[in-house]
């Protein structure tokens, strides 16, 4: 019985396939027939015109050049506190991690040169090269990505901004505020990018559902670069999203970043009030929940639109903390659970003009220094910040922004921060990311 059923299934599946195989030739003949008749019918109106001429000269050697774009950005900054003293109380980061409001006065911001193209029918590649105002340069992103996989899979390898959270994968020139939220600065060193590989899978559903994971070197904060064959950092992320009617779109996500830094050295303030150098070795886990909602009347964002964005980051660090690595080191267990969030809204009230507001706070949480609690004390302070901005974009390639922030990330010192910023892009048309 079982065998007969199997035969039946085999036959049933084999039959239509052979029928399908035979059909095209038959259909093609009929198609040609019909086409000939149609050609006769269609004589009076113009027949199919030749493929439209494109602007580029055909066959020239430059036709294969990648799409190149250049981002130019500059700032005028006015700060009431000395930026050299900047720190986020209770959330120390290594000295080479760039956080804070930057320099006072006029300064060039990051210039970014990017090139991208399909490499062949199987891969896409891109490079974003950041030229810093101090005449140094760095590879911000350089990755290759598959375009020939199906079933919703995409693989990526190289250096790239991790897809965790909402803001993390976005380049600074697409941010709605001059600076990154405090929680991103404190927990991700502004933006987490790594050398590694990424896999993403998109579900075959009407609801957007994306799952992904990354394995990386873990070279960047909150990790630390090590000489090791295995991976130093891993992430998993999931995003869901969709539309509600024609006017609303949303996306929500949950991500986890795990890394195990070794001797991540950072300056901190001791319980006695002196600056010391400490080091952490252990496990770091950062959870991120993100949500974005966008509204435009009938989905036409040209005249007015509104964007609400919120993210919550939670970090657990568990391991050993070495106090005063330069002087008399003392190592003791360390267990910290800290969190932070921001909420921001940006409203385009007339064409070209937007206003935005962001409020954010970090929660010092619980920090257990164990035997080091004589040397180090929890701050008893929750950093917070409020920012407002107005920006003007005469075209989709240029933007001028004025931003004011009341920054209370330092205990006992409120910084009034004013920024005037320009961001312009030239060359290849930028991507309209959600």
């Amino acid at each position, binding site marked *: 019985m079982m065998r007969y059923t199997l035969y039946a299934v085999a036959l049933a599946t084999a039959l239509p396939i052979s029928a399908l195989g035979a059909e095209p030739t038959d259909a093609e003949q009929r198609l040609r027939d019909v086409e000939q*008749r149609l050609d006769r019918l269609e004589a009076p109106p113009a027949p199919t015109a030749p493929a439209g001429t494109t*602007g580029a000269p055909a066959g020239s050697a430059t036709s294969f050049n990648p799409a190149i774009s250049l981002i130019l950005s500059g700032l005028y900054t006015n700060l009431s506190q000395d930026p050299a003293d900047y720190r986020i109380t209770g959330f120390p980061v290594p000295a080479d991690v760039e956080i804070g409001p930057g320099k006072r006065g006029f300064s060039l911001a990051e210039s970014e040169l990017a090139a991208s193209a399909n490499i062949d029918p199987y891969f896409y590649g891109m490079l974003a090269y950041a030229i810093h105002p101090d005449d140094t340069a760095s590879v911000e992103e350089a990755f290759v990505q598959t375009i020939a996989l199906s079933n919703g899979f995409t693989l990526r390898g190289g250096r790239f901004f991790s897809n965790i959270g909402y803001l993390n994968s976005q380049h600074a020139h697409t941010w709605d505020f001059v600076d990154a939220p405090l929680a991103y600065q404190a927990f991700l060193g502004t933006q987490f990018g790594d050398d590694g590989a990424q896999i993403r899978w998109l579900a075959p559903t009407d609801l957007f559902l994306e799952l992904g994971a990354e394995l990386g070197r873990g070279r960047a904060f909150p990790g630390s670069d090590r000489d090791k064959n295995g991976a130093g950092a891993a992430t998993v992320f999931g995003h869901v999203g969709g539309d509600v009617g024609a006017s609303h779109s*949303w996306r929500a996500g949950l991500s986890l970043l795990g890394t195990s830094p070794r001797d991540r050295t950072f300056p901190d303030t001791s319980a006695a009030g002196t600056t010391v150098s400490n080091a952490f070795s252990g496990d770091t886990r950062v959870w991120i929940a993100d949500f974005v909602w966008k509204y435009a009347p009938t989905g036409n964002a040209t005249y007015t639109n509104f964007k609400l964005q919120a993210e919550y980051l939670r970090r657990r660090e568990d391991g050993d903390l070495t106090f005063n690595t330069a002087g008399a080191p003392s190592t003791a267990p360390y267990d910290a659970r800290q969190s932070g969030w921001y909420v921001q809204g940006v409203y385009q009230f007339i064409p070209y003009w937007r206003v935005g507001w962001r409020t954010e706070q970090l929660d010092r949480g619980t920090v257990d220094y164990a035997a080091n609690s004589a040397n180090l004390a929890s701050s008893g302070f929750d950093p917070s910040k409020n920012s407002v901005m107005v920006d003007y974009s005469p075209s989709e390639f240029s933007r001028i922004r004025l931003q004011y922030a009341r920054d209370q990330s330092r205990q006992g010192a409120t910084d009034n921060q004013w920024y005037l910023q320009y961001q312009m892009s030239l060359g290849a048309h930028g991507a309209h990311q959600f």
Partner: protein
Amino acid sequence: MKNFIAAWLAFATLAFAHSAAALEVFTCEPEWSALVQELGGDRVSVYVATTAFQDPHRIQAKPSLLARARRANLVVCTGAELEIGWLPLVLRQSGNSAIQPNRPGYFEAANYVQRLEIPTTFDRAAGDIHPGGNPHIQTDPRNIARVATALAERLAEIDPSSAALYQTRYRDFAQRWDAAIKRWEQQAAPLKGAPVVVHHKAFSYLENWLGLREVAQLEPKPGVEPTSTHLVEVLDQMKRQPAKMILRGPYNDARASEWLAERAKIPIVVVPFTVGGSDKAKDLFGLFDDTVQRLLAALS
């Protein structure tokens, strides 16, 4: 037992035939959605990424678009860089190799028509120009006919088992469409040579078809919203060289055209521009019926 197997076979064959699910087509604009529906009938399941009230140039790569592109067998878009800001991103993140550019599952309508206004110099100081020429090709029904020919062939190529169906439907559509074009051209004869002002350079193909004469634009440069100084200049020009009407699309802001209409004493025509752009533009035929009627009404 034999009967059982025969019944099983018949059932399985039928089930298999029906399980060849409808062809999933992702279209960027409503006109292509309507055209795919005309050519594919029940055989296709069409998703449209934008509505008549959205500027197809200013869309973001929304989550809903990624989810739909993931499942599509065919993508049908205008091309000519109209969707440059979002479509490449959607395709790249879709995890769907079938719809990548240069694959049969990727169809750009603008490749099959003669494009107008191809710039000779590329400088963004001239506004939002498209190197491939003006992309708003759907306002000329003869372009729709050309795209239909290529699209019917493409549908047959990626879904050969239904090639006959697409050809039959195409032939039927082409005949009705040719007849309709003749009718519209007769009706629209009085429009020939009529000077018009446009909000955005979105009607070049319509003007080319009906012989309308575009004398001014409300936008100082393509893609730049009308400014008061520019509107005053256009009004001055109207005094010397009057136009018969002002054309704008459903997603253009009404204020600039209303300002000029009031002062120059000429009517505004909201051209449906694509399927769904007006109550009567329910399909491609309704789109041009209504377009021609609205233009004629403004002339009288």
